[in-house]
């Protein structure tokens, strides 16, 4: 089979910086902004003598992306020189919140104001009265705890999505059950020869479970690696309530009802165990609690699961047998698992599937990082001292959540914000939570921000979130304007680290690492005074002093072959004490989790219905006849980002709701017609409802609808109360607050119920308006 991969070859072997046709070309890896996960795709940045960005191309030297590049990086120039981009620090008076009364200031003045407000809060109410809220993916995302603990000196950082319904429930589950962070599918990322490396094995089967890696590149996984492997012969299985394009290339597609993954997982385990298709040797030597697991999953018959999941029982059996017998097999399990109140148990099932089939830490299976290879966890935490540490919100109520990620339980944070007089200073770093992204009930968050005395925001854009509540704006630089380091899976996976190279400057933006360093030097010298400059700090924080920045800049991409190893449970590389086994209390993969038990959770997987569902709330189904799932990834947007980039907006101008043709006919909805959507918790502007544009398609089954997330309209009035029309199509206003799992994790973002009703109004985006407003770039 011929692979048309590594298409460009013209610039193979070029150094990190070179000249071409009078332009300077700088090779580097992209992270953010624009928002993305730390995939670190290879880019070539062409700048002219005036230091202006002329164009961006994919770098064929990159061992994983080979010159390929997605639309979000292909439009970096439009992002960098966008007329709406905020290029300088700004301030405004508190009474001017929501108004365009910003005034340009210097970085020094901005920092002085922030330092004064933080010190005042510490003195009057204690450091825990400072709250840092952050978003996902962008470089600032994983820096959230460090911003709070190390730089501002507060224990209270918060990812605002009810139940921390993004990645961390997965990581918590794997930490407790497996003793390691999320085990990524192995796509030979650390090998120079990649798929041709002889010690690596092509997976016989790839499973996407609640994930579209090709569009999401979740957590730094280059999703199209799966296509590379399929073209070499890997089979695909998709477990997804929607028919994604990938599902049509899969041999098995289990189109389950949203939110029923744990039932399916238990039934698959049941089949594999009862038919003795599991890896007996691995189970005997390296797992704990197999008998109890077998007994528990025995309570979930295939027929019962089929009923719950709305699947054919034979399809479940066939999928379970295929997964157990095709070796190696790898599962990419996604956000959908996090977005349910018992997602932890679904995750537990998936881990158990991986473990009992012997797919953990083997070539072509699931990768685990070397225990000595983690980075930056807990930076600044110890120096807070026990008194402040005890004031992180939720430490007593939800220790399995708060103590693990060192972040305040977010649902409790909203309650405290609403009560008022608790948080007095707030930092909004890299999050646009009001725009239907990482918060349930964003209206409530919006209103609660009024109770905070002083807020400051860090972003590239004047987002509706920052516009609504901040007094100071700190401008971020983009991925081509600062020096930093990107690493796949936030450093936890033995794949690669890459240099994010500064190529130009626009205005006075700074990167997240530099802003955190600046704030830390001013507010928490106990953590920052030891660094001689920003680069010294960067080498500590991002590279663990394993390399200098100059070294990785020369290399551009550092494949982490030195930390790659398989079956590390035999070699002692999974435990700090160097003993063989897994980093769990029993030293084994805990199919029966002693940690869950310790936290008061059931030690074995179980299934519960979504809070609202045809089975759990049948009395509501007449009024809300649809199962609502939300937030599937698109190529053009990273959550709320990209709406103001004309080429990206053109790909998906309006927020869509997918509805099956049978349902559309029944409810009188035409393809392209706008509809009102509501739920039992609707707090949108149309009597609780919001409006979306119908896409009539067999992508979803009858009875299920899927709504897009993350919409705001940068072409609209930015001032309150319009606020870029952020409420018009805000799907998260339909999602309930604080209906989470027992350990504080997981909320039903992807398994609600809703009504859908056609309307006569038309809210179609005028692309000419977008082009006129945003197509003319501002190049100084």
């Amino acid at each position, binding site marked *: 089979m011929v692979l048309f*991969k590594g*298409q460009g070859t013209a610039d193979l072997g070029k150094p990190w910086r070179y000249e071409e046709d009078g332009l300077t070309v700088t090779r580097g890896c992209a992270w953010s902004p624009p928002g993305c996960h730390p995939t670190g795709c290879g880019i070539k940045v062409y700048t002219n003598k005036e230091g202006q960005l002329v164009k*961006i191309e994919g770098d064929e030297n990159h061992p994983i992306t080979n010159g390929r590049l997605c639309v979000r990086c*292909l*439009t970096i120039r439009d992002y960098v020189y966008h007329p709406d981009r905020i290029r300088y620090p700004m301030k405004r008076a508190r009474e001017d919140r929501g108004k365009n009364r910003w005034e340009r200031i210097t970085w020094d003045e901005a920092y002085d104001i922030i330092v004064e407000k933080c010190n005042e809060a510490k003195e009057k109410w204690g450091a825990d009265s400072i709250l840092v809220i952050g978003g996902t993916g962008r470089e600032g995302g994983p820096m959230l705890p460090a911003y709070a603990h190390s730089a501002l000196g507060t224990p209270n950082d918060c990812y605002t999505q009810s139940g921390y319904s993004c990645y961390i429930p997965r990581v918590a589950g794997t930490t407790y059950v497996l003793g390691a962070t999320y085990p990524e599918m192995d796509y030979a990322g650390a090998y120079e020869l990649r798929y041709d490396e002889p010690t690596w094995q092509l997976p016989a089967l790839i499973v996407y479970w609640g994930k579209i890696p090709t569009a999401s590149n979740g957590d730094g996984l280059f999703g199209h690696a799966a*296509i590379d492997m399929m073209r070499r012969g890997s089979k695909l299985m998709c477990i997804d309530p929607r028919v994604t394009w990938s599902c049509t290339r899969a041999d098995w597609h289990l189109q389950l009802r949203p939110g029923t993954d744990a039932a399916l997982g238990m039934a698959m385990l049941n089949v594999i165990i009862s038919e003795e298709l599991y890896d007996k040797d691995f189970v005997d030597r390296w797992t704990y609690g197999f008998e109890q697991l077998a007994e528990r999953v025995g309570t979930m018959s295939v027929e019962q699961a089929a009923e719950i999941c709305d699947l054919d029982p034979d399809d479940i059996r066939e999928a379970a047998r295929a997964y157990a017998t095709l070796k190696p097999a790898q599962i990419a399990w996604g956000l959908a698992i996090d977005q349910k109140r018992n997602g932890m148990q679904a995750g537990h099932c998936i881990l158990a599937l991986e473990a009992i089939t012997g797919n953990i830490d083997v070539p072509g299976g699931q990768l685990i990082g070397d225990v000595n290879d983690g980075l930056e966890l807990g930076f600044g935490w110890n120096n807070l001292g026990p008194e402040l540490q005890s004031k992180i919100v939720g430490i007593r109520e939800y220790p399995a959540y708060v103590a693990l990620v060192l972040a305040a339980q977010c649902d409790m944070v909203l309650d405290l914000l609403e009560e008022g007089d608790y948080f007095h200073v707030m930092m909004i770093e890299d999050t646009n939570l009001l725009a239907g992204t990482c918060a349930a009930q964003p209206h409530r968050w919006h209103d609660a921000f009024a109770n905070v005395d002083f807020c400051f925001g860090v972003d590239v854009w004047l987002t509706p979130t920052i516009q609504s509540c901040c007094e100071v704006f700190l401008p971020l630089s983009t991925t081509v304007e600062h020096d930093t380091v990107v690493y796949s899976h936030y450093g936890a996976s033995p794949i690669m680290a890459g240099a994010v190279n500064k190529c130009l400057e626009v205005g006075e933006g700074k990167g997240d690492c530099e802003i955190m360093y600046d704030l830390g030097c001013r507010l928490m010298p106990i953590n920052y005074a030891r660094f001689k400059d920003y680069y010294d700090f960067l080498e500590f924080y991002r590279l663990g002093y394993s390399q200098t920045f100059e070294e990785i800049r020369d290399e551009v991409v550092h494949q982490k072959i030195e930390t790659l190893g398989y079956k590390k449970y035999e070699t002692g590389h999974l435990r700090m004490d160097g003993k063989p086994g897994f980093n769990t209390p029993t030293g084994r993969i805990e199919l029966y989790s002693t940690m869950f038990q310790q936290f008061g959770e059931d030690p074995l997987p179980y299934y519960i219905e979504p809070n609202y569902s045809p089975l759990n709330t049948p009395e509501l189904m007449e009024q809300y006849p649809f199962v609502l799932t939300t937030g599937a990834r698109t190529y*053009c947007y990273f959550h709320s980002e990209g709406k103001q980039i004309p080429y990206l907006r053109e790909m998906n101008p309006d927020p869509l709701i997918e509805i099956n043709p049978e349902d559309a006919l029944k409810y009188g909805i035409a393809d392209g017609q706008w509809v009102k959507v509501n739920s039992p918790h609707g707090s949108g502007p149309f009597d609780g409802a919001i409006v979306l544009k119908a896409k009539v398609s067999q992508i979803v089954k009858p009875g299920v609808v899927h709504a897009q997330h993350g919409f705001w309209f940068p072409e609209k009035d930015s001032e309150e109360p319009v606020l870029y029309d952020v409420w018009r199509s805000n799907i998260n206003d339909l999602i309930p607050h604080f209906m989470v799992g027992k350990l504080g994790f997981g909320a039903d973002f992807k398994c609600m119920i809703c009504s859908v009703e056609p309307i006569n109004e038309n809210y179609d985006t005028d692309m000419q308006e977008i082009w006129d407003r945003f197509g003319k770039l501002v190049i100084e």
Partner: protein
Amino acid sequence: MRNGLLIDYEFCSGCQSCEIACKQEHGFGVGKWGIRVLDEGPWEIDEKTMNWNKIPTPTSLCDLCADRQAKGKLPTCVHHCLAGVMRFGPIDELIVEMDKKPNQVLFVPGPYTCK
């Protein structure tokens, strides 16, 4: 020998990098494309099978990136294709590749002969 674009649409994921790379290269505004991904599906063939093909299709504006070719570079759509399903070259070479597997399409863009 004419040059063409050979596209393996069995594995085109529909990422639209070809569209945007082309717009950037040629400075096309919104509403103009040099290549477009035709979205043929999904529709049900039978209860277990869906038809869905994404097929990058050059438009009348496609010049196969003549400027880039002059510098020894590939057309930008081919270079950036995330799934790596596009190949550029003389059609006699592409036809050999085309014979190796089904679900491929060969485009030979150029000025219309009727005008």
